[in-house]
């Protein structure tokens, strides 16, 4: 099997297997990081962020 075919097969396997349920953990991590940022904003420690 060539490297390209092996890569293709690995990709197909990855597509066929749905991701594990990581949503609840991810939610809490996002809320935790956001909480740190918001606390920094309330205490005046957040640097100015432009767009």
């Amino acid at each position, binding site marked *: 099997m060539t490297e390209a075919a092996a890569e293709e097969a690995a990709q197909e396997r990855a597509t066929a297997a*749905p991701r594990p349920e990581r949503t609840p953990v991810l939610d809490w991590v996002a809320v935790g990081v956001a909480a740190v940022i918001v606390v920094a904003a309330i205490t005046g420690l957040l640097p*100015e962020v432009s767009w």
Partner: protein
Amino acid sequence: MTTDTVAPAASGNDLAARAAALIPGLLLLAAIGYAGKLAETGVKQLAESTGWSLPNIEYVLWAILLGLIITNTVGVHRIFRPGIATYEFWLKLGIVLLGARFLLGDVLKLGGVSLALVVIELFVAIGVVVLIGRWFKLGPKLISLLAIGSSICGVSAITAGKGAIDADDEDASFAIAAILALGAFGLFAYPAIAHLIGMSTHEFGLWAGLAVDNTAEATAAGALYSDEAAKVAVLAKSTRNATIGFVVLGFALFWAARGQARAVGSRTRFLWAKFPKFVLGFLAVSVLATAGLIAKADLTSLGNLSRWAFLLTFAGVGLSTDFRAIRRQGLRPFAVGALAEVTVTVVTLGLVVAASAWIGL
């Protein structure tokens, strides 16, 4: 004793290795997102300096298109995949911080309207998918997953539903592929339809939030229309996401009663476990902003941080949409999803137009 002293070091190394594995993909997300932003500015400047009439293409579309082109032509090397998968984290962080740009009164008004429309949308989407799925002779659990995915929030809902109703991995893959492909289509089609019929930003945001299944794609569809439409789309979609526990619980009870899924146990605990916690974060930030606890300049900075987080999300949406993988999943589940989406699209459009006429949006 040796094991005791070695184990923490090993897990620390493991954590460091996992964090390091995120870096290439994160850099790719940042590069594509920023390239999208530069492309928007560059085209605008070119139009101004030359007087040419060039289309104003938003950074959102550039970021998604660049990601799509890379994934579907040269492909994405596996070294980038862990970092690209973080786009869901950036989406949720962006949504929580977006709370800073909402007054609680607006959240309650728009959220209330959204909730009423979401309830109708849920019944329509589930009913249509079940009917069409039976007509296409799909497996009953695949029908359940497609119904969960198209009625609530796409991939997260299907993943949650898969565990709750003990569905096969293959069925979950079919349902996820169909929902993502349809979302990618909606991303481009919905703003075009809205421009054609002249929808307001609030109307379009509400429609995108009700009709586009994947949260990242709903946010992107809104942002393609306007910044304000993206805000409303996120709010409407978050309201829809908040119902995930009730819908998955309904399906779990249905399959458990037939002895084809585990018993549910405590329903309250089930609902809390499935509830998207980032919605609570969004509400908490909105409360703090409304209470005046955050200075105006800092509110602007939080809003801008939210935009940067969404920028990474949009790059991730493009990079994660592989049309070749979708084609491999087969046509029947896709056809069922597509027919259901068309129905949901028409029904939700009607609901939004009616709500706008009756109560104003």
